[in-house]
């Protein structure tokens, strides 16, 4: 399986709401970097986070805008996340009932048929605005 195929499996797992398949794509010790966290997630924390996204957005849909292999197993993608926030996040944030469509980009480093690392770029302010969260 090449890197693009692994990336496609990841998209399919997200859109199939299959948390187990999604988690299984990450290598043991794989790291997940996102502006949401001040440290990379790995292991159980990563699995819990992925599950919590699907819990928070039961109708979660990942729309891929572009995806390309840059060589060396590195896949660069840009996408839009669609979903309605009807479930609680892992941090206890209650559902807002709002529908979101926020863009982002990611870099997946693939080795063999596993994801070794994922770097996410997104604008937390856009997410907050769409969810109606304003500074207190």
């Amino acid at each position, binding site marked *: 399986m090449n890197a693009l195929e692994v990336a496609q499996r990841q998209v399919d797992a997200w859109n199939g709401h299959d948390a187990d398949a999604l988690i299984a794509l990450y290598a043991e010790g794989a790291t997940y970097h996102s502006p949401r*966290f001040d440290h990379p997630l790995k292991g159980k924390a990563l699995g819990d986070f992925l599950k919590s996204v699907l819990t928070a957005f039961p109708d979660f849909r990942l729309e891929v805008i572009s995806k390309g292999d*840059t060589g060396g*197993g590195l896949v*660069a993608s*840009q996408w839009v996340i669609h979903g309605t926030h009807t479930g609680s996040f892992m*941090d206890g944030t209650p559902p807002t009932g709002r529908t979101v469509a926020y863009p982002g*980009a990611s*870099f997946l480093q693939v080795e063999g048929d596993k994801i070794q690392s994922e770097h996410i770029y997104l604008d*937390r302010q856009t*997410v907050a605005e769409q969810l109606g969260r304003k500074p207190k």
Partner: protein
Amino acid sequence: MLTSCPSKDQLKQIKSTPMSTKLLELDRRYFDAWHNHDADAIAAAFAENSTYTHPALPEPLVGGPAVAEWAKTVWTILPDFKLDLVSRDATENGIVVNEWVYSGTDTGPHPDGTPPTERAAKCPGVTISQYEGDKIRWQRVYTDRLDEQLQYGNVELKQAQHVQVGS
């Protein structure tokens, strides 16, 4: 170290093509134009009716001159704006992806009259560009404005923690 598998750099060389080399050079010039505050070079990099998307802009900009005006606004607010490249890669479909860190100090006037905070920020982001010939057909920028606002002091950490969800 001896290894039976090619390194990442070797793999990149294997995949390197004349087209990807050309795209990377075009993208380097565009990137340098931002770094060097060269609005004309930015305007010239885009195809007619191309689009430029940035989280700080409510709608995509259309055409190179509009992007150049946006760049001038950024450089006015951040007169010491500079861009440091983290990575630049071309994919097989005419797309160039680059990761960067911009830095700047908010000392200039803002278009809406907001006073400068006099604070410096260093923020990462990624630009994805679709080239058509030697021009950019579309370009999308991804960066985290909440991180920016925290560094410029427009938002306090407690406020950022409140608006951030999902962690």
